[in-house]
């Protein structure tokens, strides 16, 4: 007599919960009885999602870095005459009223001179005989993130020029245009690579699941021959798919976490990508949840489409 332990599932009961309980226990028994196939499937899902997650991590950090660069977009509005403190408050109010304004700072002539002197530290002699009257007073304006595109900046500047007293506006037009071109290129490349990667992940995972279900086509056929309904045959396989997908996703996130904390955490400093020295940041919670849901969906849809090919009852 064999010492192999019988893997008897809880058996079908009446009602929705009873059946669901049976399907779950059947799915768990199937996973135990097909350990090798289950490990291969979970391993494939794990690796595929890990590659996708690493790509996402790099993309999110690069975009974060690019966004921090866009903080450098600054508009300076110059006055030919320094406005009175009362007028400054009114002017700041009018500038803040323009959509897209994030921060407005008034720089008086004296302050401009102080800044220039500090920048020319060690070469102060160059400023000998130069009075603060030479330097114009100005407003330094920062825009919010939604208004840093080239066209938005141009529109903002033309609105700024309508304000009386402002004689000249500078905003590094060429830099803004180059930056926007770079960002558009970066997003396009990201979308293309991400798209190809998503298709590859879908293809690999769905084919792995298809092969594992193909390996058990005799079981599917037999269930049909003894009078099992389609839902009775499919449900445990779909639950298996969901469990394998969830396990693969969780494992890939765990591996991503290990990679991040062991290797990538300080890679920003090492690569000199982030001047602030904060290192690469981990994926936000929303992205982690999306990877988990993606794994579950992959398992479910992969099983569903594969089952269609092998169930003919």
């Amino acid at each position: 007599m064999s010492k192999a332990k019988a893997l008897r599932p809880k058996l079908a009961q009446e009602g929705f919960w009873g059946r669901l309980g049976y399907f779950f226990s059947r799915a768990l028994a199937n996973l135990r009885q097909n350990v090798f196939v289950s490990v291969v499937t979970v391993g494939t899902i794990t690796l595929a999602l890990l590659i996708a997650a690493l790509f996402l991590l790099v993309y999110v950090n690069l975009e974060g870095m690019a966004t921090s660069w866009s903080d450098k977009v600054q508009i300076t509005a110059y006055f030919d005459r320094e406005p009175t403190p009362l007028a400054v408050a009114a002017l700041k109010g009018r500038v803040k009223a323009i959509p897209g304004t994030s921060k407005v700072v008034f720089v008086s002539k004296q302050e401009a001179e102080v800044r220039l002197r500090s920048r020319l530290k060690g070469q102060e002699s160059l400023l000998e005989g130069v009075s603060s009257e030479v330097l114009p007073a100005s407003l330094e304006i920062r825009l919010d993130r939604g208004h840093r595109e080239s066209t938005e900046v141009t529109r903002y500047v033309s609105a700024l020029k309508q304000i009386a007293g402002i004689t000249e506006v500078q905003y590094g037009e060429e830099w803004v245009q180059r930056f926007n071109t770079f960002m558009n290129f970066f997003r396009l490349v990201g979308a293309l690579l991400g798209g190809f990667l998503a298709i590859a992940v879908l293809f690999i995972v769905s084919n792995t699941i298809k092969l594992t279900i193909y390996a058990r086509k005799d079981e599917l056929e037999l269930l049909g021959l003894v009078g099992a309904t389609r839902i009775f045959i499919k449900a445990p396989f779909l639950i298996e798919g969901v469990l394998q997908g969830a396990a693969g996703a969780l494992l890939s996130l765990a591996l991503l976490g290990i990679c991040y904390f062991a290797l990538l955490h300080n890679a920003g400093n090492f690569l000199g990508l982030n001047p602030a020295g904060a290192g690469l940041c981990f994926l936000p919670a929303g992205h982690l949840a999306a990877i988990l849901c993606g794994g579950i969906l992959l398992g479910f849809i992969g099983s569903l489409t594969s089952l269609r090919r092998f169930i003919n009852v």
Partner: protein
Amino acid sequence: MIQLHNVGMSYQAETAALSDINLKIPKGDFVFLTGQSGAGKSTLLKLLYAGLTPTSGQVLIDGVNLSRLSRSQVPLLRRSIGVVFQDYKLLPNRTVLENVAITLEVLGWGKRDIGKKVYHILKSMGLEDKVNSTPLRLSGGEQQRVALARALVNDPKILIADEPTGNLDEENKEQILAIFKEANIRGTTVVVATHDKRVTVNSHRRVIRLEKGRIVEASDVQG
């Protein structure tokens, strides 16, 4: 009652597997289908459990035309028919108990009831000490009895067997045929396909001989 009216069956681009089959098998009958390999025995059996749909004619079970069954009704039909397949179709990664239990799980039986019923039928077939074995550890005769147990465990109205004694020695053949007879005595209609004439001789059962997809002989009682 099983009825076949002018049944024809052709596989794609091949000659007819069955032609003009007319047959009536009354409830509680025991019938042997004989003939050489390729005579159409397996095809005829598949028509009985809606494994195939005839290309012409009608197959009726208790007055129900199987061609008119919807996809959702086919499982209900199959629950009333026990089938023993030529290759047994036992699941290698499940125990003997689980292989037999499948039939009752599909019906929604409770765990305790399944345990009792499966143990009872395995005991009646001399397999009570094999409940936790996997099929690959069993002999051919034992595997065949497990397949039979799976087919009979829900007391089906009809029992269909395709070459059930094909790979067995004389002793195992006798055991298997005895099980068929017991099931028939309990009221199950039995249809057995075999090319082994020694099985049908002196069986005192009706024998239908197929040749190239046609019925060429239908005796009332053999031997």
